[in-house]
């Protein structure tokens, strides 16, 4: 077991890769009573075209990773939710574009709950009947998202930015696409992506790391997995740098129109520290231009063009990356115009040193605050590890970023030919 201490934030991380390939990370948190464990496979909604080396290429229906997540809770002889409840644990799962995570939180019986978690995710049990039954449940989940205007404005923007890459497809798929899912396709995806070598277990909270590591070793040693681990090849269509569409518009019942603007990175493919550096640099950039202390924010707010819903973020994965900025607005066109004007202005005049220093301080403070949340630590650490980056490198990276890097990044990233707009309005205020 390896021990890494991060002095500045006063945390110690224990880690080990087991013989079956599973990477295990343990972070005991001083004084916490709760333990949170998340068992994640690097398999998300975008992984719909793949091959195991030596095998044939496979295309699976959209939404299958999420469907599989739901079906992992089915067991022949037991109810997983009840198993956790019996130990006072609450469990859940979620699927994103690039990973599927199973998790629990508890304040007692950590070892027992860990065994339940590892066992239920490592013992698939699918039947045709239960697969059919799930289609009704997930159908309602999809409908719920269909009625959510914030989700609609976001997913439509992804469709506008990306022509080919499956990040343009909704994580849960559609009622039509999930209709094609069978127990056999589920098993096929399971066998491909749920090998321990494709997974990470992260446990954070109140426990003795040596005892917990031993429990995980023992649990894994008692199971057999294909050896050597399957080598997964994932295929993604060639995504052109250009947008699919400049602007999209949808209609749902909303109080105010919603407008979200996206900037698609033309160049991707980074990993490791370079990826983390780009992420932090871009986040600083967005905060300087659009944060509550920016001239633009105050101007837009005074003009009644934005509300407190106004927000911005940068997402970067190895093969896609984009910024988002926007929120509720009475006048999407005017909002877009003013954002463009401000970017042009900054491109001409540059960023002032004090603006840069202030944003940096703010980001440092927010990062420290996020370490109060054991859920954040576990999920963010896992996501970063899949990308070859390190959550605990955030602080030193942030501290070392220079104004020049942010300025260069501004010219590279905030390009109007890479800018797409998504709007949601009520049918009533349709133009």
């Amino acid at each position: 077991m390896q021990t890494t201490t991060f002095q500045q934030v006063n945390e110690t991380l224990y880690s080990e890769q087991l013989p079956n390939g599973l990477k295990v990370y343990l972070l005991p948190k001083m004084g916490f009573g709760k333990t949170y464990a998340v068992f994640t496979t690097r398999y998300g909604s975008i992984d719909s075209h793949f091959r195991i080396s030596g095998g044939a290429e496979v295309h699976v229906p959209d939404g299958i990773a999420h469907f599989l997540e739901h079906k992992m809770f089915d067991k022949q002889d037991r109810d997983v939710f009840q198993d956790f409840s019996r130990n006072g644990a609450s469990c859940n799962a979620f699927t994103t574009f690039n990973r599927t995570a199973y998790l629990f939180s508890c304040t007692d019986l950590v070892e027992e709950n860990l065994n339940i978690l590892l066992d239920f995710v490592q013992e698939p049990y699918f039947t045709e009947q239960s697969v059919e039954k799930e289609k009704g449940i997930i159908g309602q989940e999809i409908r719920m998202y269909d009625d959510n205007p914030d989700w609609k404005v976001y997913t439509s923007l992804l469709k506008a930015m990306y022509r080919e890459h499956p990040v343009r497809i909704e994580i849960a798929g559609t009622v039509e696409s999930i209709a094609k899912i069978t127990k056999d396709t589920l098993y096929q995806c399971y066998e491909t992506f749920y090998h321990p070598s494709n997974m990470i277990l992260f446990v954070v909270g109140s426990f003795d790391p040596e005892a917990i590591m031993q429990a995980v070793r023992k649990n894994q040693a008692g199971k057999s997995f294909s050896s050597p681990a399957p080598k997964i090849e994932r295929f993604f269509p060639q995504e052109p740098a250009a947008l699919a569409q400049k602007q999209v518009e949808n209609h749902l019942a909303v109080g105010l129109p919603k407008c979200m603007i996206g900037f698609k990175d033309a160049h991707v493919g980074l990993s490791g520290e370079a990826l983390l550096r780009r992420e932090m640099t871009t986040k600083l950039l967005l905060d300087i231009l659009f944060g509550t202390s920016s001239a633009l924010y105050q101007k837009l707010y005074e003009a009644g063009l934005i509300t407190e819903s106004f927000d911005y973020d940068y997402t970067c994965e190895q093969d896609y990356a984009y910024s988002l900025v926007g929120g509720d607005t009475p006048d999407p066109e005017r909002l877009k115009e003013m954002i463009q004007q401000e970017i042009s202005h900054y491109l001409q005049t540059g960023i002032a040193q004090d603006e840069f220093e202030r944003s940096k301080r703010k980001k440092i403070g927010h990062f420290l605050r996020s370490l109060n949340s054991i859920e954040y630590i576990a999920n963010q650490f896992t996501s970063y590890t899949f990308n070859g980056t390190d959550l605990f490198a955030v602080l030193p990276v942030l501290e070392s970023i220079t104004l020049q890097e942010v300025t260069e990044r501004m010219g590279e990233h905030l390009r109007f030919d890479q800018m797409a707009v998504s709007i949601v309005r009520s049918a009533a205020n349709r133009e």
Partner: protein
Amino acid sequence: MAAPAKEISFQSSQVNGLNLHIMPTEKFKTTTIVVMIEQELSQAYVTKTALLAHVLKRATARFPDTRKLSEHLDMLYGAIFDIDVVKKGERQILQVYLEVPNEKYLSDSVPLLEQAFQFAGEVLVHPYLENHAFSEKYLNTEKESLRKRIESLIDDKMRYANQRITEEMFKDEPFSLLVYGRREDLAAIDGAGLYRYYQELLSRNPIDVFVVGDVESAQIQEYVKAHVKPERRQPVTLPPANAQKDVQQVREVVDRLDVSQGKLNIGCRTHVTYKDDDYPALQVCNGILGGFPHSKLFINVREKASLAYYAVSRLESHKGVLMMMSGIDVANYERAVSIMKEQLEQVKAGKISDEELNLTKATLTNQFRELLDSARMMIDFTYNGLLSGRKRLLTEMLQAFADTTLEDVKRVADKIQLDTIYLLRDRKESV
């Protein structure tokens, strides 16, 4: 490793006429400060109090410009600052929230904590004024913001349905009010009148200040004494709240909107509130019915009938409301209503297995123990006790869960009265 705390223990004292509650703990990397000002929930005050949350956030005497105020917060390492109103039964709480990183994690040492109290004091006691009135400029912008906030309730269909059924169920009771107030009140509010109202509130209503973090009590008392000095006068006695009414007749209400999923709410009056001896048993009762994935609603509406993605019940603890909620295809309305009503009947009839009772107690216990790892939730738990006049230790609450018997559950379930069945549905004709 420090042993995890088992109790939520604030040290309470009186400073400058404020009730100060301090909880020193090493587990968080930030210090949280929350100020709660209690007001009755009433038509006369609801919009003014909500508007105060907006106006007070804009500027102080030292920072007359919002951008300067925001920059100051950034320089305090991204201090989180927010003011909001929350509804707890028939009380409207004006809540100031401030969170700053603990200095010991920062590479340069700045007196962040004292500056945080200084800032809190300025926001509360020295807001930005022009001629003894809130400035018209900020007031007008914030009236617009509040109006947009009220109108945007419709964006989140679950929250919208919840507010609509609340309005229907509590038609002639203050509890029907939306905590953000009423659009029609906005026009009549002016800067001078709102400031007079605020002075009254600040000098006579109960004010509680909570501090959680790695702090020393004596130091905090000094900071509050020096920096948070409102003029306090003879406190008002707020009128009694949360009168309990019997249901005369069960009503059905249908609203129509452009939605694809129907939101079904079934609202019940529990006749048991936080201050009652039966409150812990009501929690257990709600848990059995719909609090967890092992609960009757989840099992029967979702797992067995495949009608919904979510089917839950939630408690409002001060007024005494139990709300069953689900998202369904409107074609399944009758079936969903009958299954949900049936589950409540089962609980009332005591058709509850030992397993159901035990799982619910175990998960509830865990849920309450998890409060210990969140500053915000510990504050909320303690404030619920103060507000209701029934202080409970966490350990007491946990013991009460452990002691709850099937008979107790039946007894509280028997008091629960079904009041209103509400459906938010699409605009198509007929079910």
